């Protein structure tokens, strides 16, 4: 990080500096607005042996699997499993014994992150799970997937999940300043918890905005600058998924990726063409426009539907009134200093 706090960098530098082979990586976004551009960069840098945490099981997960980046998966929902003949990479890998998996419910996954973000070692979850195989079947976490204690207050069975503190979170948001204050709106899911629970955070955003924009709308800031390691300005950074206020899902882009991933050979060809063959996200988008034209992208651009502005204003922002008198004591600075002198509260 440079001294003035500016954390802007390229996706290439951000991933190279913050994602290491064998890391536990978490997708910050939940189901909507997936950080595809950062996923592509992780694939491009051929990261290996990752334990990947993903709640929505989107097609980005399938891509990381197809590219051989991940060995272990902590999930709640493998979106494409059980469809089109069971041919997507994660299901294929599970059948071939090439992937270890741990299943949680959406709530438990989020609870692990909430414990992680607040520094607790565990979080209670909902005890109905005692009657589910999610509780009884343990994957690579073994006994530590869940523990049960007796609540010291009520005497009831209380099911616990351990805190989750991933090594690195990748997350795409609408806008951020160069310091890393990241603003996100729409479906909150587990987005904030996923980021704040993590040790390092890479933020990509549709646009970098002035710090003034951030401080006048702090309710949209879900990650404060001091927690962020890298900020990457990346228009269309969630393509082919969507970003609220920017663009809808690109079904042609999604279909191209999906169709490619259906076979091992198809997956390889897709990766060669779209990731290894494109040095960065810009090149990827240009490749897309070269193939399909810009008509599709133009048709999915969001029309404005603005949030009503909230008034953060106050009556004044200085203690001195129009007559230069202090608002509480009713005296000028000159008079105040005279009084302080007279009262003997000043020291030479």
């Amino acid at each position, binding site marked *: 990080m440079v001294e003035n706090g500016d954390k802007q960098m390229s996706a290439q530098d951000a991933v190279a500096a913050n994602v290491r082979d064998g890391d536990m990586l978490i997708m910050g976004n*939940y*189901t*909507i607005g997936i950080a595809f551009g950062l996923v592509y960069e992780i694939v491009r840098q051929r990261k290996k042996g990752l334990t990947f945490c993903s709640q*929505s*099981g989107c097609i980005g997960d399938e891509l990381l699997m197809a590219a051989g980046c991940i060995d272990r998966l902590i*999930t*709640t*929902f*493998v*979106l494409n*499993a*059980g469809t089109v003949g*069971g041919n997507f990479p*994660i*299901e294929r890998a*599970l*059948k071939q*014994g090439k992937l270890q998996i741990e*299943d*949680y*419910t*959406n*709530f*438990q996954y*989020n*609870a692990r992150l*909430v414990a992680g973000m607040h520094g607790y070692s565990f979080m209670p979850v*909902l*005890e*109905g*799970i*005692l*009657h*589910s*195989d*999610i509780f009884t*079947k343990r994957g690579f976490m073994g006994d530590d997937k869940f523990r049960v204690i007796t609540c010291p207050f009520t005497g*009831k*069975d209380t099911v616990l999940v351990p805190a989750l503190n991933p090594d690195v979170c990748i997350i795409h948001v609408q806008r951020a300043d160069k310091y890393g204050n990241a603003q996100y*709106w*729409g*479906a*909150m*899911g*587990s*987005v*904030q*918890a996923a980021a704040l629970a993590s040790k390092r955070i890479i933020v990509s955003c549709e646009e970098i905005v002035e710090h003034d924009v951030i401080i006048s709308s702090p309710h949209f800031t879900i990650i404060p600058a001091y927690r962020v390691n890298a900020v990457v300005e990346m228009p269309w950074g969630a393509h082919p998924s*969507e970003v*609220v206020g920017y663009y*809808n*899902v690109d079904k*042609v882009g999604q279909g191209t990726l999906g169709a490619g991933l259906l076979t091992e050979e198809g997956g390889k060809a897709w990766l060669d063409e779209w990731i290894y063959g494109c040095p960065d996200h810009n090149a990827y988008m240009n490749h897309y426009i070269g193939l399909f034209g810009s008509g599709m992208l133009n048709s999915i651009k*969001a029309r404005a*539907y603005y949030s009503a502005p909230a008034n953060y204003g106050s009556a004044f922002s200085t203690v001195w009134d129009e007559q230069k008198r202090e608002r509480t004591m009713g005296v000028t600075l000159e008079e105040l200093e005279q009084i302080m002198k007279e009262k003997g509260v000043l020291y030479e």
Partner: protein
Amino acid sequence: MSKPYTLNELLIIAIAKEIHDHENVVLGVGIPMTSGALAKALFAPHSNLIMESGIIDFKPTVPMNHVADCMSCRGFSYSTDLFSTFTMTYRGFVDVCFLGVAQVDKYGNLNTTVIGDYENPTIRLPGSGGAADFISYAKRTILTMRSGEFVEKLSYVTSPGYLDGGDSREKSGHFTPGSGPTKLISTQGIFEFDPETKEMFLSQLHPGVTVEAVKKKIPWDLKVSPDLKQTERPKDEEIDFIRNNFPTESVGKNLMWEIATASFLKRLNAAKPTIEK
């Protein structure tokens, strides 16, 4: 007689009628989402539609892609996180939730995780998502079934229904008292659960379906209500609402992709001469 309808439309309408006015309603994507929109428009205008991603009090304007798709509605009243959506369910604020069925047994226990062995799957399914926690604490759970199956024994219990039947769910003390699956709605009819044994029985048949046809798909000796009801034929107004606003839901995923692919190729071919120029 009203106009012809698709099985999806029939299912969407039957599910919509389970939403009552002023209820807090958790919806999954696909058929239940469309049912929610229909209910809000025609039957339950003050219902509060909820998605687990923390989107509270929304009204879909176009078909939603997933449970975090706040781009398919114009605004919503309350934006919270997923954690809080479940704790509000745990505290008893959710009246009804809707869950899709992959495998179901006679006591309404569900499997949406795996067919075959967990470690060595024959088919891997998506998993729980929010299902296991919603069925445990929503006051009512409606199971919806488009293409799932009834089985004697589940490969994997993802979401607990009435466990081993009788009072086993209630006795465990781990669930909201009185909660659990109240109905299962399929494209053939509606099933309910016996108040004592908690075994699923057939309570209502959709138009043109016979008891024999229903029994064919069920591996146990299905009990049938002595006063078996008939589902009303969908009304034009209901069909029109779905077809005008959510036509992809009327035809269903498979036919939608068939039509979409054909028309995409047609447009591509039509554009070719211009591209070559």
